[in-house]
Structures are given as structure tokens and as C-alpha cells.
């Protein structure tokens, strides 16, 4: 079984972003970019399934600018077999990405697509579910455990009240949550090897997908700030303030 893992190039999780002063967006020039952390978990899970002998090939796909090749290389250095870059300089929305992925699914015929549950830039949390709708496949979102049993995929999901387990009839779409696994670091020899692994370059046009945005971004602003308050010296003083000053307790 082949596993497809879509990966997104995003601002590194440890970078504090800045909103552009003209409110036209977030400053992305000369900012460290990395693979979306949830996508790293997706790559790791696919590799573990391959190491267990339950998958035969792991293919990383990225829809983005030329530099998204680096993101695919990160996946290849972790151990994925090959990559597909769908090159576009527009920032495609989840719906457009899902349509491109659907076309790739038809071409590649994977048994499983594992995606990050959300990208830490737009925080949309949509692409996996949309791909599931477009392919007509079942979805196991926010996975903290994934078990393949014959033609079925058992997914334990992190839900508001605790955990829920669903059984999906494969092929299926799974999106990762934080507790699914801890992604490996790529070793130097594997980084060198990854340079030789093939990456196909495509365009959205080649798949007949229009990536024009459906949502018009009118403005990107700073959130309302919050100032530091006062330091209290003792627990007694804290309780006094909460009770008598704020009337909270």
C-alpha cells in the first residue's frame, strides 16, 4: 500500500510573527520556514507503517512555491521515497489544495493519505476533511493512534470529551494530532541521500484546478494587546485582590 503525505511550508513554529504595518499581511521575507509540525507527525506515522511492513512507499506532496521543494526534501530526509511539488506562487486555500490532492490521489492510488490536522499559519483545519469529501473516502481526524487491520483502519481521535475510536473502510484519510508520535530527526547520511531522491514538478493547471481564492482578505491586523498587571507578594494578597478588588471569588 502506498501512503500519500501532503506537507506544507510554514513559518517556523518558534518564530514570533510580525504583522506588516500596512495591514496587508504577515511579514514572510527573511523569516525561517519549516515543515508544518503536524505534517512532520504525518510523515513519521507513514514511515512507521512502512517500517512495520504495512506500507510499501511514502510519497510527500507539497502545493506551494519553488522553495516548498525544501519542505519535501525534509520529508525525504526523514525517509520518504519520493516527492511531488505542485508549484504555485499564490497561497492556495484548503479547498484548492484538496482539489489538487484529489487529482493526485486518482493518479497515485494510495491506500491512505495522512495529513496534519491544521497548518500553524492559517489555522484552518480543513484540508484533510475536504479531501475526504472530494474522494468520498472516510476520515479519521485528530488521530492519536492509527492501526491497520486488513482493509480497515482504526483511528483513535482526540475529541473534546476525551477519546473516540472509529473504524474506517479503506482507502481513508487520516489527520494527525500531537500525541500520535514523536517525529524523528533526519540523520546527516539520510539528508545526503534525500538529495538524490526524485521530486516531480507539476502545476495546478496540469490537474485542471483553479487556485483563485474564494475568500478575499480585506485586512490583517494586530490582535488586541494585553498588558502585564501587578505582581503580588503573597498568596494572601492574591486572594484579597481576587475577592475584594475584582469580586471574582
Amino acid at each position, binding site marked *: 500500500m502506498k501512503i500519500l503525505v501532503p506537507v506544507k511550508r510554514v513559518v517556523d513554529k518558534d518564530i514570533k510573527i510580525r504583522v506588516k504595518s500596512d495591514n496587508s499581511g504577515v511579514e514572510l521575507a527573511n523569516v525561517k520556514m519549516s515543515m508544518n509540525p503536524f505534517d512532520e507527525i504525518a510523515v513519521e506515522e507513514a514511515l512507521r507503517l512502512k517500517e512495520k511492513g504495512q506500507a510499501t512507499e511514502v510519497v510527500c506532496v507539497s502545493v506551494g512555491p519553488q522553495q516548498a521543494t525544501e519542505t519535501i526534501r525534509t520529508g525525504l530526509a526523514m525517509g520518504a521515497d519520493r516527492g511531488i511539488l505542485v508549484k504555485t506562487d499564490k497561497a492556495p486555500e484548503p479547498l484548492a489544495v484538496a482539489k489538487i490532492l484529489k487529482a493526485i490521489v486518482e493518479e497515485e492510488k494510495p491506500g491512505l493519505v495522512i495529513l496534519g490536522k491544521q497548518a500553524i499559519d492559517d489555522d484552518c483545519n480543513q484540508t484533510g476533511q475536504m479531501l475526504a469529501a472530494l474522494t468520498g473516502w472516510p476520515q479519521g481526524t485528530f488521530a492519536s493512534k492509527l492501526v491497520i487491520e486488513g482493509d480497515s483502519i482504526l483511528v483513535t481521535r482526540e475529541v473534546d470529551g476525551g477519546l*473516540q475510536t472509529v473504524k*474506517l473502510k479503506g482507502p481513508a484519510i487520516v489527520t494527525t494530532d500531537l500525541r500520535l508520535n514523536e517525529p524523528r530527526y533526519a540523520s546527516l547520511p539520510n539528508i545526503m541521500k534525500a538529495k538524490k531522491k526524485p521530486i516531480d514538478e507539476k502545476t495546478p493547471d496540469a490537474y485542471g484546478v483553479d487556485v483563485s481564492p474564494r475568500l478575499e482578505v480585506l485586512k*490583517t491586523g494586530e490582535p488586541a494587546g494585553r498588558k502585564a498587571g501587578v505582581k503580588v507578594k503573597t498568596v494572601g494578597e492574591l486572594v484579597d485582590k481576587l475577592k475584594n478588588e475584582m469580586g471574582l471569588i
Partner: protein
Amino acid sequence: MTTLLLAEHDNKTLKDATNKALTAAKALGADVHVLVAGKGCRPVAEAAAKLEGVNKVLLADGAAYEHMLAEPVAALVHSLAPGYDAIVAPATTTGKNVMPRIAALLDVMQISDIVKVIAPDTFERLIYAGNAVQTVRSKDKTKVITVRTSTFQATGEGGSAPIEEAASAADPGISTFVGEELSKTERPELTSAKIIISGGRAMQSRENFTKYIEPVADKLGAAVGASRAAVDAGYAPNDWQVGQTGKVVAPELYIAVGISGAIQHLAGMKDSKVIVAINKDEDAPIFQIADYGLVADLYQALPELAAELGKAGR
């Protein structure tokens, strides 16, 4: 012009997230119909019918909807969609799971996790873990929207809408519910609690949550939360996680104990009305957003806090 709101419930009671999302749904300016999909869930539909400003309740009662699996529920909503201009749900794990599937079936781009309705087609939403606010206008014919419940007040009772049975749609039959492990607690739910006390990595163990955090929570009638670091370390269950990828909360009072204040945690709690931070590192970033900071060792401060609250009559 009509808006369809997908109700959040457990087949017995209507969840507060629905009341909050209803406030956002009403802000779109159209009539609101509430869809209650589930199994044996008429009491939920009756509760929804009493909410102020609900014009009609649709009840889809069937075994396929018992656990709100995305595949049958999306098929159901898709079949009802032609009658609606907007489809709204709270951004709970159920809403987040089902709504993008509906949006893609309708070929529209979902507007996730809105914090403000500016016009029926224009919304504010947070990006980059709440470090930027985007104003977006949707050009799609149907608006599919999830609502960040922490930023909307709950709508109360005061209505008496009719309840109609909705025809169920065919279950695609590609997914089945196997089981669930739900946390049992007498405490309020995180997303609707007035007071929350959360612990971070400094708690060091699950036992310390029980020994130090929970007595204070019980005195305050508070919900218990945790940072991602504490959940990852196994000190707290995943459904306690507050943050960008966990729950987003905005209680009257948020007490952060042994939490340094990583961006991703702040994203989940910085809209709280009053924030208290207890941390022994006086340079911890959490103090930059706390209304009241106490630099102290939590293992001394928490028992003292429980005792002081006792003296204060809690």
C-alpha cells in the same frame, strides 16, 4: 435568507457551545434553524426550540447520527443545504470534523473559527495562533462557518420554535463507531467554566495535579486545564489541553500554575477576563499578560491558596 446551525449535544443535553454559536448565527441577520442530528435526541431538540431567536428546529433522529460521525452527518447537511444561505457550527471537535466535509461537498471555502461577524459575508478570524487577526470576505454562494465559542456570549431561553422531523440522508456506510473513553468529572467543562486553573510542565506528575491543583479547583468550582507540555508528558489527559491546538477558553478567571506561557498556550487563554500566573521563574513570559502575578514555588503556593480560599469561605 436562512441560516442553519448544527447543534452540539450528547443526545441528552444541548451543549453550551450551541448557545454561543447561535449568537454568531443570529448576527448574520437571517432566520435561524437549528439542526439536531443524533439518536433518541428529542429532548435536545426541545431544549433548542426554547432558545431565543430560533425560528425552527430540525430533528434528524437516526442510528447513523448517534456519534456525529462526519460521513453520515455531512451527507445529511449536504441534503438540507439547498434551503440555506449559511451553515454554522461551533468550532468544537465535532464542528471542526464535519464542517469542512460539508463545505467541500458544496464546493465552498469554509471560514474557520470566526471571532466576529462584521457583515453576513465578512468575518474576523485569528491566524498564527492568535498573533494576527484577518478580516475576510467570502464570495461563495453558501457560507460555511465555524465559530470560536469563547468570543461569543451564550444566547438564553425565550423562544418556542416548532420542531420538524428532517428526512435522513443515506449513510455512506464507510465508517463505524467503535468506542470512546470520555473523562468523567463532576467539575464544569473547560469551554463553559467561569473559573479555570491550569497546570504546566512544572507539575511534574499526574499525582501532583490531583494533590495540588484539584483541591484548589474544588474550592473554586473551577475546571482543570493543562498546557501542551503537561499533556505531552502524560501528566494530564488530552482533553484538558488549552492552547492553539487544544481548547480555546475565555473564563472570568484563569489561573496558570507552573506554565511558562508559550505562544501556543497563550493562544488558548489570552481572552480570559482576569489572568493569574503563579510561577517560580520571575522572567516567565506568562507574567507579561497576567493581571496578577505571584512569583512562588507552586508546591508551597497551592496548599496555601487552598487554605486561604477556605478562610475566605470557599
